[in-house]
């Protein structure tokens, strides 16, 4: 047995191997021992060594537990199982359960051995097979072996019966269709005396009820009486040493019967009435000084809450919970909080009585209890108690653990939003939360806050001053900074002039340059993220118009970012600089206050999109391409989401954070393939031309393809290109103004606009734009015009290109095309010609749409691209 003599002998005993592994002082040493052992086992396997097969398997299991790979031993398990002897089978099945799981295909090979063993004459071998099947069987195996297991339910031996019953649970979980096959046998097992069989049978019945309504009906009729008898017997039974746990006979059976009773009586008044008495008996008679008794009481309360119990019984249950809640044992308090959550639905008043205790639990040292209690408090909040409860929670926010702040903040924000009849109160709470835990506040929450502020004209002054003060005190909170910076940009003059003071406010003195200072700090701070800094830039730009004397200084600050490595910031600062410098005439109208954001609309959409994101990422309306406000390297334009909503562009309703950037390409692909509708704009209807432009403007953040050249291009207004300008109602004029006054040289505009496709009903024109230094890449702006007299709906444009060209389609501005050329839809395409200069662009296009609900399809080829693309 000396390893040094023959390293490949499988001679070490299991005990020796464990000992030598335990003796290892370093991980490297341990690895070496394991490697040596694995090598020996591998060698033994390849020699198909019979003698030490089961010892090797035991070793492998130990090695597996240590976390080393042991896949090479899987086939050995099968061989051991196929062996005739009990010892081999025992270790083989154990290995099977430990080393394999149901996903492995190897498992299919074992089905036959299992079948044989299920029919074996030795009850212990049958037991091993049932145990293995019950623990790891897959759906296929379940189907194949269900008849065997069904037969074994009628076996003489109680041990086989109970194992077969549990194995049936697994089978029914894997293949719910089989539930009806088992219900007869399961019901008859409930007549047994053996507790193991009873427990297993009760559990099987519970599982059957979950899987099939037919089984539920059947068991309601056939088993309830028996269950009541079992429960009565076991709860009245005198001391039974075999099953006794702390003076209670078989608490496990108690609990499982109570659970099945709940399943059977849920929503059934007759059944509920039938078990009323026995539940009352269990609830009153069970001792509650030990865990076992409390476990039964807990289950009993849950059953009472779950069924159509009488009010007397419910009072009894609530009282038990009250006792639990004041218990010193943390476990008991935990389950009490858990149960009270379910009890709320039944009797809110009774739970409200315990409010103070529950609130104390929110501050418990134990995170498990804190979480439960917080969820419960959240459910307890109503119009009358919202203010004191919120105050308590916000106060606690100050001292709570960092880990807990996420949960706590989310809950507070949610409460505050839900019960905000009083705007001032809402603002105060939100400002406190932002100051205390702004880093934990979700994006949609502060978006909503901004929407609210913009709507509350009488509170804007108060908001901006409070935020300014908060900013001085706790500037490390990211979302506080964002909201504050936005408000300073919008309502800067109210900050400086103390406009619309409230009675409760104390006047503060802030000079214009103080306001600029405040914003500048966060623009320059390294820890601030790109979004915050971009917001700072916008805010500064606005301040330059609010406070003309600071304009020069702001110009300098903005100009400092012209060389920023973050493209978004660089681009913005170049553009903003040019606005400050060259467009004094339009600056003030350009930088007017944001139009009031439509609050109701925003809230509705936010709710919808939250629901949609919860339900599934795939749900089409929520994750439309337009919703992609966050860019790989760009920045979500801060107020873009609410703004988009303002303009009723329903596609933009996904809040920034909830939309996963990675889904964007998929969506485009889907659009290309015509699988997903681009967007049916249910709320928007047919957007007018001006909204089209606005939307393109808004897509600053949302066009994932174009990172926009640092120079500004000008484009005819009809097919407006992304323009990084804060939106104002005068936006159309602005564009005109820009295109006439901007005299930047733009050689790229040399490509003529072409008519790519024309039929009796539809015209498609392409205009082109190239980015300097990238001759291969072309951005095509397609404009679709409806020449027919009926509106096109579900309009989808698809394009295909030869292999040497890469094509990317952005979402169209709308899927509805108004009739008779009254407005158009635009869509931009990015094309990369990999053989630029050698081959011209070529493209096949296909357009599908609906006219009065009828599908239409048009296709064609575009070969008249201007030369040089």
């Amino acid at each position, binding site marked *: 047995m000396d390893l040094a003599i023959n390293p490949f002998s499988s001679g070490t005993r299991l005990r020796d191997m*464990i000992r030598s592994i335990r003796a290892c002082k370093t991980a490297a040493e341990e690895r070496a021992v394991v490697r040596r052992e694995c090598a020996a086992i591998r060698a033994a396997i390849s020699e198909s060594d*019979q*003698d030490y097969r089961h010892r090797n398997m035991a070793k492998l*299991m*130990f090695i597996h*537990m240590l*976390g080393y*790979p042991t896949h090479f031993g899987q086939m050995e398990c099968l061989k051991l199982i196929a*062996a*005739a*002897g*009990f*010892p*081999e089978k*025992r270790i083989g099945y*154990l290995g099977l359960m*430990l080393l394999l*799981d*149901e*996903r492995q295909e190897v498992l299919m090979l074992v089905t036959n051995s299992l079948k044989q063993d299920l029919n074996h004459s030795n009850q*212990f071998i049958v037991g091993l097979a*049932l*145990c293995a099947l*019950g*623990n*790891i069987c897959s759906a296929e195996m379940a189907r194949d072996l269900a008849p065997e297991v069904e037969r074994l339910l009628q076996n003489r031996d109680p*041990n086989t019966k*109970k*194992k077969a019953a*549990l*194995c049936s*649970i*697994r089978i029914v979980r894997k293949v719910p269709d089989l539930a009806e096959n088992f219900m007869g046998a399961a019901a008859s097992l409930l007549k047994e005396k053996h*507790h*193991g069989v009873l*427990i*297993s049978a009760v559990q099987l019945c519970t599982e059957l009820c979950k899987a099939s309504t037919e089984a539920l009906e059947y068991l309601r009729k056939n088993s309830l009486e028996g269950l009541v008898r079992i429960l009565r017997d076991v709860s009245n039974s005198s001391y039974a040493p*075999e*099953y006794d*746990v702390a003076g209670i006979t*078989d608490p*496990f*059976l108690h609990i499982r019967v109570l*659970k099945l009773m709940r399943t059977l009586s849920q929503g059934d008044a007759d059944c509920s009435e039938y078990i009323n008495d026995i539940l009352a008996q269990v609830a009153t008679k069970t001792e509650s000084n030990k*865990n076992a008794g*409390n*476990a039964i009481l807990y*289950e009993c309360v849950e059953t009472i809450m779950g069924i159509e119990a009488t009010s007397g019984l419910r009072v009894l249950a609530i009282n038990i919970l009250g006792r639990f809640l004041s218990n010193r044992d*943390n*476990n008991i*308090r*935990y*389950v009490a909080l*858990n149960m009270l959550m379910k009890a709320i639905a039944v009797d809110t008043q009774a739970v409200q009585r315990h409010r103070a205790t529950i609130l104390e639990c929110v501050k418990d*040292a*134990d*995170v*498990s*209890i804190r*979480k439960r209690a917080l969820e419960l408090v959240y459910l307890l909040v109503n119009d009358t108690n919202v203010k004191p409860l919120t105050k308590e929670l916000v106060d606690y926010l100050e001292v709570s653990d960092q880990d807990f702040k996420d949960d706590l903040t989310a809950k507070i924000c949610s409460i505050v939003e839900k019960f905000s009849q009083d705007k001032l109160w809402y603002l105060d709470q939100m400002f406190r939360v932002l100051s205390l835990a702004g880093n934990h506040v979700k994006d949609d929450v502060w978006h909503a806050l901004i929407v609210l502020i913009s709507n509350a004209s009488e509170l804007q002054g108060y908001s901006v001053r409070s935020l300014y003060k908060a900013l001085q005190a706790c500037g490390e909170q990211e979302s506080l900074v964002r909201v504050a910076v936005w408000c300073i940009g919008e309502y800067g003059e109210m900050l400086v002039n103390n406009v619309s003071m409230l009675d409760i406010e104390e006047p503060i003195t802030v000079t214009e340059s103080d306001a600029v200072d405040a914003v500048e700090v966060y623009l320059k701070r390294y820890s601030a993220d790109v979004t915050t800094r971009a917001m700072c830039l916008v805010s500064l730009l606005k301040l330059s118009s609010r406070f003309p004397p600071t304009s020069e200084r702001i110009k300098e600050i903005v100009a400092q970012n012209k060389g920023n490595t973050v493209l978004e910031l660089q681009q913005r600062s170049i553009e903003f600089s040019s606005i400050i410098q060259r467009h004094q005439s339009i600056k003030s109208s350009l930088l007017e206050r944001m139009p009031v954001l439509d609050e109701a609309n925003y809230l509705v959409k936010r709710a919808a999109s939250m629901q949609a994101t919860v339900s599934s990422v795939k749900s089409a309306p929520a994750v439309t391409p337009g919703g992609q406000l966050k860019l790989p390297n760009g920045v979500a334009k801060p107020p873009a989401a609410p703004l988009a909503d303002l303009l009723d562009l329903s596609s933009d309703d996904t809040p920034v954070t909830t939309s996963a950037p990675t889904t964007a390409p998929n969506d485009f692909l889907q659009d290309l393939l015509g699988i997903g509708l681009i967007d049916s704009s249910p709320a928007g209807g047919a957007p007018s031309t001006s909204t089209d432009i606005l939307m393109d403007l808004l897509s600053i953040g949302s066009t994932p393809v174009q990172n926009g050249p640092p120079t500004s291009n000008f484009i005819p207004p009809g097919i407006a290109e992304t323009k990084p300008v804060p939106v104002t109602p005068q936006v159309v004029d602005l564009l005109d103004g820009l295109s006439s006054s901007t005299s930047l040289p733009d050689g790229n505009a040399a490509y003529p606009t072409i008519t790519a496709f024309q039929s009796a009903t539809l015209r498609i024109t392409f205009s082109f734009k190239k980015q300097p230094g990238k001759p291969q890449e072309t951005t095509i702006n397609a404009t679709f015009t409806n020449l027919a007299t009926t509106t096109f709906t579900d309009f989808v444009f698809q394009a295909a290109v030869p292999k040497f060209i890469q094509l990317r389609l952005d979402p169209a501005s709308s899927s509805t095309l108004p009739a008779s050329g009254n407005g158009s839809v635009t869509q931009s395409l990015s094309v990369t010609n990999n053989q630029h200069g050698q081959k011209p662009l070529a493209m096949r296009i296909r357009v599908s749409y609906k006219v009065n609900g009828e599908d239409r399809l048009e296709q064609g080829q575009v070969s008249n691209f201007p030369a040089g693309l």
Partner: protein
Amino acid sequence: MIHFVLLISRQGKVRLTKWYTPYPQKQRSKVIKEISALVLTRGPKLCNFVDWQGYRVVYKRYASLYFCMCIDPADNELETLQIIHHYVEILDRYFGNVCELDLIFNFHKAYFILDEILIAGELQESNKKAVLRLVTTQDALVEAAKEEASSLSNIIAQATK
């Protein structure tokens, strides 16, 4: 239902793992790591339940070993605690004052006992003596088979029969 059972030593060494819900091997080690981090760091006076990824982990410390069971949130936590205790009591009777070393060197025995208590993540037997009887009878069967096949050739002959 119980999704998995873990025995972890205070040092974070795994002493037993039993999976009733399929987890791929890679995920298993991740789960073990997460659960150890959650459970081992908790103080002595706290409750025995932790929320974990929408499930609930019920754990209890016996000497240097943490017994952890992962259950559905709708399951009875107090009962699961009782099941853990049930298992520990049976181990204790089987080994006679069980300690961690017993479970290290006889880990397969610990598995055999667990297999007589739980199948498919559900309780199989509430009678401790019955469990012990079943396990010892099967141990005896193994011993008998070993004696019967006292020579190596006998085993070979049996296996190739």
